[in-house]
């Protein structure tokens, strides 16, 4: 895709450290330091990066790209362009498409669509069970050995609630170093559930989704993972009780990792009082105490990563009464801004921590940190030139109508975030420059982005 060009990033701060220069050429970082320009050819493009933080390209372990099947909500092309604008160079595409990504054929299709689009690396997630039905294992081995090299398996949207099926899945993926990413939701405790069960649900009369329905499954799964010696990843942790269980499991040495979404770092169930389905999501928005607990857990490492759970939906699926609306919210273009605001601006995390929770750790969990096109690598000489430049001082107000995703279901419209993506490089090629995607589209803010 295009002629290879050298890029000289001047005065950028890798992981927020001392400013220096980076030279990107032939898809790699070829020089780091004050004399990096020495290796730049006459055609090299210089980017004045004073004040910008350089991060390894962001990696999202939990994205819904909706293709195949719901191209009216998002496609691989539009979703990955939104991802690039959000600073990502790699996304894991969830399996709940139509048809479900439960065969080598479907995961290879998604993988191929990602290659063709070229915005980010697309790593398909394979379904755990055929048709996400929770009854019979999908052909996990075939997906693992396909061109898509699937390592993450999930029935996300549905919980693998049968304990025997979960045990088998955890055991089976050991053969190819896979991981089961569980959507922890006890189905019987959440029949018809609409929002977090608590003081707000009692008053507004929406059926409750109790915290225990998440925590009971996590408790069971960490014990299963310990028993069979497998890797478990817990999707979208949302409650203080879940954090306590994870802390206990990690203290026992159980091989469990966990993610939190940007929206669970910022929003609470109080928003359901508006009955606006933009705030309807699964797991639901929880209480302020839960938000504080997941922030603390992310800061201390109990929760390993931030993953977006970007879930685009068409307008008709949200422009209706709450009970009729779909669960989910978009998040690729706002994730970094929310992490900056909730974790960096508050002094709870450094930029090195951001690089860990949004790049190196998710790459390792997904086993895309090595191989032909590794992600989440350090910003060092010889590494692939997957680089995201962030203006940490930028304050911007989300304008939902300006986001690049095909769908408009962001709950963050009108909110001020900080930390703005200025440029994204995928193996040395800019997918985003000056906040504008390589095809001329721009993401997100009301008013001109910094550096434009």
């Amino acid at each position, binding site marked *: 895709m295009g002629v290879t060009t050298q890029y000289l990033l001047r005065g950028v701060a890798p992981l927020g450290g001392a400013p220096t220069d980076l030279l990107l050429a032939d898809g790699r970082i070829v020089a780091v330091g004050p004399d990096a320009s020495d290796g730049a050819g006459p055609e090299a493009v210089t980017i004045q990066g004073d004040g910008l933080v350089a991060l390894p390209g962001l990696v999202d372990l939990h994205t819904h790209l909706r293709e195949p099947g719901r191209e009216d909500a998002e496609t691989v092309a539009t979703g990955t362009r939104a991802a690039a604008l959000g600073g990502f160079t790699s996304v894991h595409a969830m399996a709940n498409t139509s048809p479900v990504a439960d065969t080598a054929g479907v995961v290879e299709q998604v993988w191929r669509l990602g290659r063709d689009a070229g915005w980010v690396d697309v790593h398909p997630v394979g379904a755990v069970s055929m048709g996400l039905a929770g009854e019979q294992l999908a052909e996990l081995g075939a997906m693992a050995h396909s061109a898509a090299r699937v390592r993450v398996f999930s029935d996300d949207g549905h919980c693998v609630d049968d304990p025997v099926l979960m045990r088998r899945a955890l055991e089976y993926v050991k053969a190819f170093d896979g991981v089961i990413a569980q959507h922890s939701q006890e189905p*019987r405790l959440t*029949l018809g559930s*609409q929002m977090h*069960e*608590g*003081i*707000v*649900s*009692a*008053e*507004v*009369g*929406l*059926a*409750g989704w*109790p915290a225990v329905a998440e925590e009971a499954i996590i408790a069971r799964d960490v014990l299963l993972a310990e028993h069979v010696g497998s890797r478990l990843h817990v999707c979208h942790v949302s409650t203080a009780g879940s954090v306590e269980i994870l802390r206990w499991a990690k203290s026992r040495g159980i091989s469990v990792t966990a993610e939190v979404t940007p929206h669970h770092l910022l929003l609470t169930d109080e928003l359901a009082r*508006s*009955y*606006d389905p933009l705030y309807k999501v699964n797991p639901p928005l929880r209480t302020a105490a839960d938000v504080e607990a997941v922030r603390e857990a992310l800061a201390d490492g109990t929760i390993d990563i931030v993953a977006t759970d970007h879930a685009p939906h068409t307008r*008709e699926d949200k*422009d*209706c*009464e*709450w*009970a*009729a609306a779909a669960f989910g919210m978009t998040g690729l273009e706002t994730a970094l801004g929310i992490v900056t605001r909730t974790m960096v601006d508050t002094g709870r995390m450094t930029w090195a921590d951001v690089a860990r929770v949004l790049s190196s750790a998710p790459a390792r969990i997904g086993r895309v940190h090595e191989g032909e096109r590794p992600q989440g690598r350090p910003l060092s000489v010889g590494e692939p030139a997957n680089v995201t430049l962030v203006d940490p001082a930028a304050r911007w107000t989300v304008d939902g109508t300006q986001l690049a995703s095909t769908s408009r279901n962001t709950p963050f419209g009108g909110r001020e975030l900080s930390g703005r993506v200025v440029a994204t490089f995928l193996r040395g090629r800019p997918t985003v420059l000056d906040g504008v995607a390589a095809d001329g589209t721009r993401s997100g803010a009301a008013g001109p982005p910094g550096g434009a």
Partner: protein
Amino acid sequence: MKHLLSAGDLDRDAAIHVLDTAARMAATQGREMKKLPTLRGRTVVNLFFEDSTRTRISFETAAKRLSADVINFAAKGSSVSKGESLKDTAQTLQAMGADAVVIRHPASGAPHRLAHSGWVGTSVINAGDGTHQHPTQALLDAYTIRQHLAGGPTHDPTAEPDQRGLGQDLAGLRIAIVGDVLHSRVARSNVQLLHTLGAQVTLVAPPTLVPVGAQAWPCDVSYHLDEVLADQQPDAIMMLRVQRERMGAGAGSGPSHGTGFFPSPLEYTRAFGLDARRLRMLPDHAIVLHPGPMNRGLEISADAADSARAVILEQVTNGVAVRMAVLYLLLAKEKETWA
């Protein structure tokens, strides 16, 4: 005030104003010529996504007594069942010239969406949404209670019934609400409104039918009806309807199998039913309310339902006056303000 979505929309003065307006409306209903010209030329749509003949007829009667044109729209499917969407239905009715939409909907918050999503510009009156609110029911309950009990022993029993309690709240009255609180919009609305009017409310239900989170409500909660009757001597007791699908083994074989909220109808009746024995435990002046329709023999016995203490039919009558008051206050062009 443009909409009536929740009992919580009304502060004490606004609530009393509605009740006093209802009393003025009621005073006109004893006449041979019941119809008032107030809303002539205005159009009220009854938009009912759930079957509720009683509530629909009550609103229809109220609107007609105020000379409004009434359109009844019984929407068979909602967008929940993939029929026409709520938005399209409401916009269609507005395009036909509706001034107010009275909506009954199985989804909590549907009236709120109608009022605040920008879909339509009409007034919206909540006639019951999911397990959320039923504010006109709470108003007619408060009206009925006030008529009988406000002012305590000093009230003038010789006054015309419609004029009793005028200008007063329900301060000091003890009111028990018994039954399926979890699924009840009537209970939620009444807890808010009766508290606003100064009454002390106690909810009585098996623990499975009390919502998690109800500890934040401005009321007490008890699991023991006999204790509440003996210890509190409530001035009014309101029995909530218990729906069949909440019982025993749940719906039988479907996904809710085994999810009954209490073991059997008999056990429920023994613990929470209002029968002749419990009726005798009430103080002499106490009244019995039920929002209807009743399950005789389940939450209320025939002895209680047909006793002199039962004001259940008065509730129905008062419902018309209260709904006239609400329509008048929301729609009449020349009128005093709410509060």
